[in-house]
C-alpha cells in the first residue's frame, strides 16, 4: 500500500492501482469515454485529466493510465483540470456534433451544445475500446488501430477490421460507446462489420444463440468438445 492524497483526502492505495480507480472508490466522479475496468487503459479521450504534483509543480496527466506512487498528491477538480476537460470535450464535440454520448459529455463539462443538430450520429470516436476488447478479452486481434505517422499516407486514422480473424462474438459492439459498431441478427445470421456469420442453434431448445465460428474458436481454445458447446446457456 502507498499513501496518496486526492483532493486533500489522505488515503492508502494499492500499489500499481491507477488514480482513476482510487478516485472511483472515493466516489469522486471523473469523466471518461474510453475507459472500461476490464480492459487496459488507453488514454484516448483525455477527459479523465487530473493534476499531479511533481517536483513541487502541478502537472496534467490522465488518471486512467497513471499508477499511484508513494506520496502522490492529486487534484481532480482544479480550474486547470476543469478547463482541460472542457477543451477535450469541446474538441470531441466539434468533430462529432451529432453523436449522443459526445453531446452529453460536452454539455456536462460546460461546452455550449447546439440544439440545431440532432443526436442521431453514430461516429467512431477512436476510443479504442473495441480494439482492446477484441485483443484482451477475446484474444483474436481482428480489430487494430491504423495510425497516421511518418511516411504513412493516411488522411484519417481508423479502426481496421480483419474478417479472417473475427469470430463474430460481438464484444466490440457491446463495448462501443457510440453505436458505431453495429450488430444485426436476422434469423440464423449475425452481421457485424459487414461480415455475415452463421448462427448455431441450441441442440436442446433450437434457438439460435451464438455464431458457429465463435463456438469453434472456443472449442479450439478450451478443448471442450463441440457437441457440448452447441447447447445454449439456458439449457446447460
Amino acid at each position, binding site marked *: 500500500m502507498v499513501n496518496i492524497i486526492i483532493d486533500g483526502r489522505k488515503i492508502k492505495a494499492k500499489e500499481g492501482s491507477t488514480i482513476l480507480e482510487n478516485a472511483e472508490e472515493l466516489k469522486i466522479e471523473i469523466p471518461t469515454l474510453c475507459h472500461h475496468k476490464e480492459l487496459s487503459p488507453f488514454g484516448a479521450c483525455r477527459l479523465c485529466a487530473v493534476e499531479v504534483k511533481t517536483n513541487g509543480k502541478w502537472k496534467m496527466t490522465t488518471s486512467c493510465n497513471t499508477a499511484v506512487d508513494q506520496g502522490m498528491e492529486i487534484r481532480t477538480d482544479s480550474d486547470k483540470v476543469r478547463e482541460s476537460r472542457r477543451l477535450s470535450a469541446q474538441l470531441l464535440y466539434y468533430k462529432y456534433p451529432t453523436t449522443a454520448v459526445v453531446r452529453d459529455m460536452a454539455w456536462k463539462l460546460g461546452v455550449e451544445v447546439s440544439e440545431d443538430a440532432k443526436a442521431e450520429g453514430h461516429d467512431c470516436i477512436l476510443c479504442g475500446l473495441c480494439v482492446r476488447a477484441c485483443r484482451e478479452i477475446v484474444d483474436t486481434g481482428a480489430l487494430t488501430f491504423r495510425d497516421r*505517422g511518418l511516411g504513412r499516407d493516411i488522411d484519417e*486514422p481508423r479502426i481496421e477490421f480483419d474478417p479472417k480473424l473475427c469470430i463474430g462474438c460481438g464484444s466490440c459492439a457491446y463495448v462501443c460507446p457510440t453505436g458505431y459498431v453495429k450488430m444485426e441478427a436476422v434469423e440464423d445470421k449475425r452481421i457485424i462489420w459487414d461480415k455475415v456469420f452463421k448462427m448455431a442453434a441450441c441442440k436442446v431448445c433450437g434457438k439460435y444463440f451464438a455464431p458457429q465460428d465463435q463456438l469453434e474458436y472456443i472449442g479450439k481454445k478450451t478443448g471442450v468438445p463441440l457437441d457440448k458447446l452447441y447447447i445454449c446457456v439456458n439449457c446447460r
Partner: protein
Amino acid sequence: MDTASFSSWNGKIVDNRKGKVAKSADIKFPAQLGVDNVSAAMGWNGLVVMDPDADIISLTMNYLKEARKLSCGECSVCRIGIDRLLDIFGKMAEGDGNKKDLFEVQQITRGVSVNSKCNFGRSVLFPVLDSIKYYRSDFLALIKGERKLETKEYSYAVTAPCMEACPASLDIPGYIELIRNSRFEESLNLIREKCILPGVVGRVCPHPCEDACVRQDIDGPLSIRLLKRAVADYDLQEGGSPLTGTVEEKEEKVAIIGSGPAGLAAAYNLRLMEYKVTIFETLPRAGGMATVGIPDYRLPKDILNHEIDLIKRMGVEIKLNTKVEKLNLKELQKKGYKAVFLAVGAHIGTTIGAEGEDKGYEGFVDGVEFLRDMNLGKKIQPQKKVVVVGGGNTALDCARSCVRIGFDNVEIIYRRSRAEMPASDEEIEEAEKEGVKFNYLMTPVKILEKDGKVTGVECIKMRLGVHDESGRRRPIPVKGSEFTMDTVMVIPAIGQRPDLPAMIGKDKVEVTDWGTIKADPVSFKTNIEGVFAGGDCVTGPAILIEAMDMGNKVARSIDYYLRGEGLKREISFEGVNTREQREQGFIAEKAAEKVDLLDVDKRSEGFAEVESGYDVSEAMREAQRCLRCYRLMVWEQAG
C-alpha cells in the same frame, strides 16, 4: 544571413525586427539544417525567421498540415486539435475570420500541449503560439482582409532523439508504434528499409538510440534493440518473409569486395535499384565481422545466415573463398563492373606495445584471429589460464568465449578503470557473473616465455591522469610497479585495423596515416574513378549498424554516379538538441519489460544464446512506453 530577424527557439525570444541591436538566435538556420535559402523555419521548439518578408501565416498553416500527418490519432486532443486549428486558419484565409478566433487558437494550442498523450502532441504546437503572439498584426491583417496569403515553396524534415542517435536514422518511433498496434509485419518492413539485418542488429547493437531516449532520465530507456529483435524473431517464427525484390535488371554491374554488414547493405540496396551485384569474399563464410567477429552466444549463426540468405535470394551473387589479392580494379572494370565498393572491414588486431608480442610465441593469439578461428570451426583446446588484454567488446567476446570453451581461469587486464571501459555495461556485468576476473589499471609490458611457449606476462600498474582527446582520463604508468602474472595464453584485443589487400597498393588507392582507406565522407568516393569505400576499412572499427548504414549510403552514391548525377545533400539536425522541448508534462514511471537470460551455470556448457527475446505481448507492452518524440521542422524556401 547570420542573424535571425526573429527567433523563439527553445522559448528564448530574439527579436531584431525593430532596428534593435542585432542578437543572434539560439539556433543557426539554415546552416544547421544543411539546406540553402531558408527564409523562415518552424519546428517543435519554436519559430526562426531569417527574412523579415517571410509569410508567417502560410508557414504556420503548412506546418500544421505536416503536423497533421504525424499526429497518430490515438488521442483525441492532438488529432482533433490540429484539425480545428487548420479549420480556423482556413476560415481566416477565406475572409471569415474573427479576432476571437486567435483566442481559441491559443486555448487549443495550450490545451493540446498540456494534455496530449505523447511528446509529439505535447511539443508540436508551441511555435503556433509564437506565431500568433509575435506576428499577431499579420493575422489581424488577414482577418481584416488587408492581407493575402502568399504561395511559397515549403519543405519539411522529421526526426526524433532516438533517430538522431541511430547511425542509420531508423524511424524508431514508427516501427515501435506498429508493434504497439500489433502490426509486426509492417514494422519489419519499415525496419528493413534502412536495416537489412534486423535480427542481427536486434541482438548485437550497442543501441546508441537508447542512450538518447527521453525516458533515459525518467525510468530507463525503451528497450529499442529488443523491440527490433522481437519483430525479426516473430517473422522467423512465422516462416520468414522474403525481401521485396526486383525482377528487372539494369545492364550495369557492381562489384563489392567484402560481405560484411557494409557490403551486404550496399548489395541489397543496389539490387533494389536493379543493378547486378557480385560480392567477393575472402573467407569461406559470408557476413564479415558479423560472422567471424561475434560469438554464437550473442548472435546464433542461423539468424545471420537467414538474413544473408534473404539478400542472396534477391539475386545478389556472393563468391566465397575469393582472395581479393587476385583481383585488381582494372581487371574488374574490364570484366564490366562499372563501380567497385571496397568494404573489406578491419580484421587485423593492433599491437599492444609489449616486448615479445611479435615473436610468434605459442599461446599468444590476437583477439580477432582467435574469434575468427573459433567462428570458422577451429577446435580450441581449453587451457588452465588465459589473460585477455583490452576493455572493448572484442576483449569481452574473447573472454566470455574462453569461459564457454572451458578455460579454468579467464582474466581481463585493462589499462584504465571500469568507468572508462568501452564495452557495454551489460557485457561487463554478464562476464562478471560468468566468472571472468577483471584487473583494472594495468598494462602488459613483456610477454614471458619458455621454449617459445607463453608462461606469463609482465605488467605495469597505471594511474589515471588528465582527460585526453577521447574524453577519457589518460592512463600513466606507475614507475617501478612492474609485476608478473602467470598464464599460458595471452589474447591481445585492444583494437583493429584494416587488412588492406595488395590490390590497394598496386592500384594506388589512397590510404590515411591510420591505415584506413581515404574516402569522401559524403560520396564515399576514393581517389580512383568508379571505386568507393566504406565500413570499418574507412572508419576503423565501428559498430555494426554504422558500417551497415555506410553500405546504404554507398549504394545511393553509386546509383547517382552510374546515372551521371550529382549527389544531393541530406537534411541534418546535427547540433540541434532534439531532446529539448518547451514543456515535458507528466510522465508516469514504468520500467522496461524484463527479458530472461540463460542461467549462469549453463553458460559454461556451450555457446547457447544468453539473451531470450520478447514475445509478442511483451513487445507490445514495451512499445506502449514509447513517448513518440517526433520532431517536425517545416521551412519556407526563399524564392
